[in-house]
């Protein structure tokens, strides 16, 4: 407890030094990731923060899904009520920055804050998505990577001794675990919009690709070999190996299938770790996403951003609250509660975190996979660009006759179409 007090004391002092006297009211919009239980925990953290000092009063605004959160924050901003702090999908920061909707963190933090040193306390994998155009625009708060969850009892029953490490092993295991008539599937992966694109990216990265040009977001690699490999792997699992249901499976269907023993392996976010840990009634474990060419996954999760149009007082309050949220203690506590890994590397130095990781080796696997993690696709009109490949992946999962080349070409064409205005106003304009 004492370190919290010290920390809180330090924060209160800085706020006073800034000259704030009356409590500054700001809004903090957050979605409900994974489970409703988390929104209650989030409101508790907000309350604790409000009680810990009297210069800032944060109003925790629950805003539904990630999409609803983005819509609401943006609509409020356009209407002249910008929220000072929003927990936003990590890959939206670039786009919001492009549209000039959010403040760079340097404009929110007090002058002279060493943001480079600050960012260096975060895992290298999460840094790229936090920046745009060389500037820091968001502070990572809860991050995840896709990870393989598997039912150890099913594995033992099928005589498989260890988690698959390569795609060849993955396919073999999935086939072996599958039982006829949909009684049990070897593998399930969510293919609904959003999750779909994230996992295609993960598979493409495992095949050695980078999915998009990380140094220039106007280029997308949907018709490259690595993405085609991803599309083919997923399609084949359903149609050729028949180890996965055809058609689209929602993430809720995937988690429910795993809990009910209808699927032996699933791919879900590490953000679902606590959820799985608390509800799996059988022996399970997690493993890295198997490699095709190499081990590599994109990060996911959410970061804190501050919308444009707030007063300097609100900015100061926003910074104070954001610093509180990403303080080692709070961010570590949130990570333990949710299963998201803490993007702040130094949080793992805390004794309580080391203890936790020791007791929950699955949480350690999630952190170790970070060494192989890269940025999440973030570009102009990200959702539309992502949808271009998701539509094709969904079509491939239900239409056996559609060829990979055809699907990849169309995804590329549609993505290019979406990106055209951006490309014309950036790379092609000199």
């Amino acid at each position, binding site marked *: 407890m004492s370190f919290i007090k010290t920390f809180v004391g330090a924060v209160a002092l800085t706020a006073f030094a800034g000259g704030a006297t009356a409590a500054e009211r700001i809004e903090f919009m957050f979605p409900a990731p994974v489970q409703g239980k988390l929104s209650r925990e989030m409101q508790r953290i907000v309350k604790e923060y409000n009680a810990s000092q009297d210069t800032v009063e944060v109003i925790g605004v629950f805003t539904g899904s990630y999409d609803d959160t983005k*819509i609401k924050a943006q609509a409020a901003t*356009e209407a002249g009520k910008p929220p000072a702090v929003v927990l936003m999908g990590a890959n939206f920061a670039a786009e919001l920055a492009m549209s000039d909707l959010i403040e760079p963190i340097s404009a929110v933090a007090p002058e002279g804050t060493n943001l480079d040193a600050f960012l260096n306390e975060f895992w290298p994998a999460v840094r790229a998505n936090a920046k745009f155009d060389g500037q820091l625009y968001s502070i990572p708060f809860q991050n995840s990577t896709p990870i393989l969850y598997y039912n150890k009892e099913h594995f033992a029953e099928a005589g498989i001794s260890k988690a698959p490490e390569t795609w060849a092993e993955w396919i073999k295991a999935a086939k072996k675990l599958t039982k006829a*008539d949909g009684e049990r599937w070897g593998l399930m992966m969510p293919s609904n*919009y*959003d999750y779909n694109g994230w996992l295609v990216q993960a598979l493409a990265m495992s095949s050695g690709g980078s999915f998009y040009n990380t140094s220039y977001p106007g280029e997308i690699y949907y018709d490259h070999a690595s993405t085609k490999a991803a599309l083919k792997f997923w399609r084949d699992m359903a149609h050729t190996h028949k180890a996965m*249901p055809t058609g*689209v*499976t929602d993430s809720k269907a995937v988690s429910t299938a795993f809990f009910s023993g209808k699927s032996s392996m699933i791919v879900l976010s590490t953000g679902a770790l606590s959820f799985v840990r608390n509800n799996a009634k059988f022996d399970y474990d997690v493993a890295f996403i198997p490699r095709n060419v190499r081990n590599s996954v994109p990060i996911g999760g959410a970061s804190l951003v501050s919308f444009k149009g707030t007063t300097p007082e609100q900015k100061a309050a926003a910074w104070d609250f954001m610093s509180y949220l990403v303080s080692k203690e709070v961010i570590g506590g949130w990570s333990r509660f949710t299963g998201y890994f803490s993007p702040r590397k130094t949080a793992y130095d805390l004794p309580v975190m080391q203890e936790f990781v020791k007791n929950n080796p699955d949480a350690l696997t999630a952190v170790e996979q970070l060494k192989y993690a890269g940025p999440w696709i973030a570009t102009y009109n990200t*959702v539309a660009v992502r949808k271009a490949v998701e539509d094709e992946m969904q079509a491939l999962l239900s239409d056996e006759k559609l060829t990979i080349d055809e699907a990849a070409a169309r995804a590329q064409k549609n993505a290019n179409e*979406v990106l055209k205005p951006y490309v014309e106003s950036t790379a092609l304009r000199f």
Partner: protein
Amino acid sequence: MAPYLLLLPALIFLATFTYWPMAQVVFASAFEGRTIGSATTYVAFGNYLRLLDDEDFLGALWNTILFITWTVIPSMALGFLFALALRRSGWLSNIHRALLFFPTLLPLVAAASLFIFIFLPGVGLLDYYLAKIGVHGINWLGDPDLALWSIMLLTIWKNAGYYMLFFLAGLQSLPEDAEDAALIEGASWWQRQYFVVIPMLGPTFAFVSVIAIITAVVQVDHVIVMTKGGPNNATNLLLFYVYQQAHEFYDIGKATAATVVTLAFLLALSALSLRTMERRVHYES
């Protein structure tokens, strides 16, 4: 002066929250831009031409037509049949009425979440019992050929009891004598419904059809919760298309143009249904 004063309160709200924003939308539809405020390039009808080029939009238009047809007709027909069956009060029919009406009271977001479970492949309610009769592996929401129909099923389930209520009310207000007269003349049950009851319920049918069409078109929560328009746009409806263009893709040009087209479409539809409603009522009185 009086008539205008009477219209004024309603007009104030309509002007503030319908006409003024609509005017903004129509104006914005002639520009290309990312947010309404930042509209910069004047493109005249460019956005509308882009819409015609957009397969997703045309698909959404077609899906909407299917969705309206196949939710309005079955839910009204069922609502009417329910009402006929439960016409007379009694403890049993009161229980039946309450059970059939119950889905109406569920918030659409909640009903949609529950139906995700019902449609869940393998362990969901439908599959669990279908498996008992040997039907396996139907992916209700994940198969592009089925997904829209699954969502229609939810909509019909949710609304039939609602419409039943209006039909019940309509039936109560019918004079029994008319039917009894037909009975004396030896008309069968079906003949009586067809030749006597249905024509006399004209106004109720007209009223319910307007409600049903509005309900079918203006609701979007279930699409957002269940499929987000997927798989591969199979459940993309006009309103969801507008929602996505405006709030996810920030293509304000396309969003506003699609809004105008949607409104024109709806306007035609409502004019048509109101015309019917009015004619029916005239005939009746």
